[in-house]
């Protein structure tokens, strides 16, 4: 399944972010991008050239970036406050909490080059805490689109979303998850079922959905039917879909480009446990350590976030389930 998809041309979600914002700005002068010397890394140079009045540059000053964005949003602007995720979600966390979420200024906080996109630059530039900290803040939704389709849809919906939104993008070109999205309805807050299956469910978000899909291909060849969900909205979690999938499948594996602490996996596990849906769960992500350096792919491989690692995790869990049954 994944092989066919790679034939379709695709680009980095960041580029789709910029192109979508330009399309929106063409029709709406209220669309404003605020950047902290990050228009280059945010692929917003063409946006700035086309709409110089609609890009606000505050320099390398993330706290001010978010405060200014909140002020603009309070005056009716549709603001996309763009900065590397590592700084935005840490340095400006109090501004996100108070000026955006608590004050209900519907800013779109856009974390770029997230996760381990800046792999070789090391820990200072990795953003592996953003889901965890933002999940703990009321009145902001957390979104990590997987492919170009999800990105375009998410941005379009975020522009008119009445509450604050955190959007997270990596740097790598991301293949489409499906051959065709015809007749699909993308909705913020609703998970997207990519493949169907009732042996195992892999729930992933952002740039880990594609390796999850590749793992499902491997599993398929071994007779294991896997449901893959792109849980692009980490908060609020689509608990209806999670419940349905977990009840149907024997095991649950979650995958994310984030610390295993406090992210998508823990959100899923907490829901399942608290609703008495007892399934073996494996949370895959970056363990509680400072990551090795390398490219995003090398780091993913190091931690088993690839087709082999993910498919092995599924098989191990399934094996444990059958051993448990045999014991009984």
């Amino acid at each position, binding site marked *: 399944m994944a092989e066919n998809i790679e034939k379709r041309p695709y680009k980095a979600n960041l580029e789709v972010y910029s192109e979508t914002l330009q399309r929106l700005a063409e029709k709406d002068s209220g669309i404003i991008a605020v950047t902290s010397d990050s228009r280059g890394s945010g692929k917003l140079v063409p946006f700035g050239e086309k709409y110089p009045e609609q890009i606000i540059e505050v320099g390398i000053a993330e706290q*001010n970036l978010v405060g*200014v964005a909140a002020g603009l949003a309070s*005056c009716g602007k549709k603001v996309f406050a763009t900065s590397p995720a590592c700084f935005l979600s840490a340095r400006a966390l109090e501004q996100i909490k*108070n000026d955006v979420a608590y004050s209900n200024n519907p800013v779109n906080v856009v974390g770029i080059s997230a996760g381990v996109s800046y792999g070789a630059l090391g820990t200072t530039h990795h953003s592996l805490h953003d889901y965890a900290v933002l999940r703990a803040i009321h009145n902001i939704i957390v979104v990590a689109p997987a492919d170009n389709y999800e990105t375009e849809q998410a941005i379009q919906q975020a522009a008119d979303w009445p509450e604050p939104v955190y959007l997270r993008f990596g740097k790598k070109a991301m293949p489409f998850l499906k051959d065709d999205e015809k007749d699909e309805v993308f909705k913020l807050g609703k998970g997207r079922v990519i493949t169907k299956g009732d042996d195992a469910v892999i729930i992933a978000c952002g740039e880990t959905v594609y390796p999850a899909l590749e793992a499902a291909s491997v599993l398929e060849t071994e007779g294991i039917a896997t449901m893959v969900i792109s849980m692009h909205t980490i908060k609020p979690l689509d608990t209806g879909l999670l419940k349905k999938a977990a009840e149907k499948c024997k095991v649950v594996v979650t995958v994310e480009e984030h610390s295993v602490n406090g992210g998508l996996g823990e959100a899923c596990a907490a829901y399942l446990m608290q609703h008495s849906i007892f399934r073996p769960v494996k949370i895959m992500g970056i363990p509680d350590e400072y990551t090795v350096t390398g490219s995003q792919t090398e780091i993913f491989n190091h931690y088993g976030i690839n087709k082999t690692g993910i498919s092995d995790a599924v098989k191990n869990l399934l094996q444990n389930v059958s051993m448990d049954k045999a014991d009984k």
Partner: protein
Amino acid sequence: MTSKELKIKSIEYRRKILQYIVKAKAGHTGGSLSCVDVLNVLYNEVMHVSPENFTSPDRDRYIQSKGHCVEALFVVLADKGFFPEEDLNTLCRYQSHYIGHPTRKVNGVEQNTGALGHGLPIASGMAIAAKLDHKAYKVYTLLGDGEMPEGSNWEAALSAAQYELDNLCAIVDKNGLQITAATKDVCSTDPLDKKWEAFGWAVREVDGNDVDALKEALLAAPFEKGKPSVIIAHTTKGKGVSFMENQLKWHHKVPTLEEFDKANQELENAAALLL
């Protein structure tokens, strides 16, 4: 308002600040008393904002960055009719909207503040929006001298100058004291005027408890075309009550009933002298 009326108004506000702090058994007494003249002049003489136009995109905007002195803001907003004054009887009570910092749940409050160093960036964003929309409204924000070491203020000072926000006016309530000690002994930001100037702002210094001087300065902003304005308002913490003035302990000490009576009497006497 005449100068005398404004002065009497400030005394009235001070009495109410103390009254509601005593009732709530909580509040920031010293700072509210130091900054209330600024609020008096802003709301009664300078800003075009009222309960009637509060949803209008053309209204002037005020952000209280030093949010802990919310009692001054609430008393002035009640006086301007944004909400019934008796609501303040619930100040800091269980489930009240009138909490110890400004929140938008209270009519007339523009933004939720309280954590320091947030007002100036938000006010800058509003001022940029006014420029983008070619609107004439102005944005005012009140900062405490104790919050000046917050880096976000200086980030905002830089970008506000870069964007030539002459529709933005910051007022620093420079009462010289913060919770621990004198501001100059904690983390001095002096010479404050030179710092703002170096960041590209037009600066004026006034006696921040002199309503006439404040009115003159606030109405004169912008002081220079193409530059944001800052008024360094030299004030006295605990202003108006002899035993509270310049006393560190009154940062957030709540008066006893006896102290309240004494303070009230002093303020009444001061008002009587003006009549």
